[in-house]
């Protein structure tokens, strides 16, 4: 039963990944990350993604704090945060998040505060969705590793 479990879990992972690629949530760069993971660095993808989560949440907080300022005018600073967010999203293959950043940056360059606020809402939404899906992916992977690691007692 457990051996089948491991296979089914692998299928679940593939299906989830395929969905995320189809939706454009992830792109080819995520595959590149997976290729960098091996026995010498078995947790590489989750390590990198956790750094991404940590940095992204900081950036999102900064962006929101900026836009909530009553006399907000520092679009340049916002641009810097956005460039960082764009860069790191690119680096892990977070395609949709990156695209929202691009639109956000455009609004920022036009000093369009309302547009920026809308973009921020969308960005937070996309980021949330990505984070949930990646957590799901890692959970399935963890279960699969556990299931695959269980050995059957040898029958005499």
């Amino acid at each position, binding site marked *: 039963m457990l051996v089948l479990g491991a296979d089914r879990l692998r299928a679940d992972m593939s299906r989830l990944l395929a969905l995320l690629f189809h939706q454009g949530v992830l792109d080819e*760069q995520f595959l*590149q*990350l997976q*290729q*960098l993971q*091996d026995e010498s*660095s078995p947790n*590489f993808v989750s*390590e*990198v993604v956790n*750094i*991404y989560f940590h*940095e992204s949440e900081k950036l999102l907080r900064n962006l929101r704090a900026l836009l909530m300022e009553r006399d907000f005018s520092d679009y340049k600073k916002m641009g810097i945060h956005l*460039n*960082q967010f*764009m*860069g*790191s999203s*690119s*680096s*892990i*293959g977070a395609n949709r998040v990156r695209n929202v950043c691009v639109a956000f940056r455009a609004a920022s360059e036009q000093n369009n505060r309302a547009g920026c606020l809308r973009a921020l809402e969308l960005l937070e939404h996309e980021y949330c969705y990505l984070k949930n899906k990646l957590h799901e992916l890692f959970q399935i992977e963890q279960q699969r590793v556990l299931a695959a690691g269980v050995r059957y007692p040898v029958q005499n």
Partner: protein
Amino acid sequence: MGMAAAESQFHVLAVDDCLLDRKLIERLLKISSYQVTTVDSGSKALEFLGLQEHDQISSNTPSVSPNNQREVEVNLIITDYCMPGMTGYDLLKKIKESSSLRNIPVVIMSSEDVPSRITRCLEEGAEEFFLKPVKITDVNRLKSHMMRTKMMNQKQEIIQKNQQLEEHKPEESDSQLLQQQQQQQQSSNNNKRKAVEEGLSPDRTRPRYNSISTMV
């Protein structure tokens, strides 16, 4: 001639202010079997390379090893362009202006595709300009730059060693004369050989270096 050093891995210094990108480039380099050191700023990079913010004027010691100013040899520097404080371009300039560091190949990375930026960096002496996210195919291109520099350095060492040997020769005018005659003979032989080769070249297929293919 430092045979032990010849067998060791190439050592790459990676500079990026973004932790995520540092992790990525480090992994890409390690998986390519390079020794890696990462730093998060241009000034830390210079510190690691043994150069302070102000340029060091290297003394005129005719040393065989070019690395007597730092303990660890660095074979290539790969740096992000956009960094607070000292940009990758500033770092590139400082390296090329330094007599002790200018021979180290430098590669620039950037998440933005700005042609004028790329041109500026290449003109300043960068070997390559990689667009982020950096891929393993990009990293595969680094080896040829490091090999080329290594061979240039080895050639330099041989030339310097020969010069030193020349200077320490006992004064025997006969042997010097003989050596000169031998050298003249050799160079005229070389000229003859060249002429013959050129005569043959239309029939020979020379291997072409395809800029697309990577040299391993």
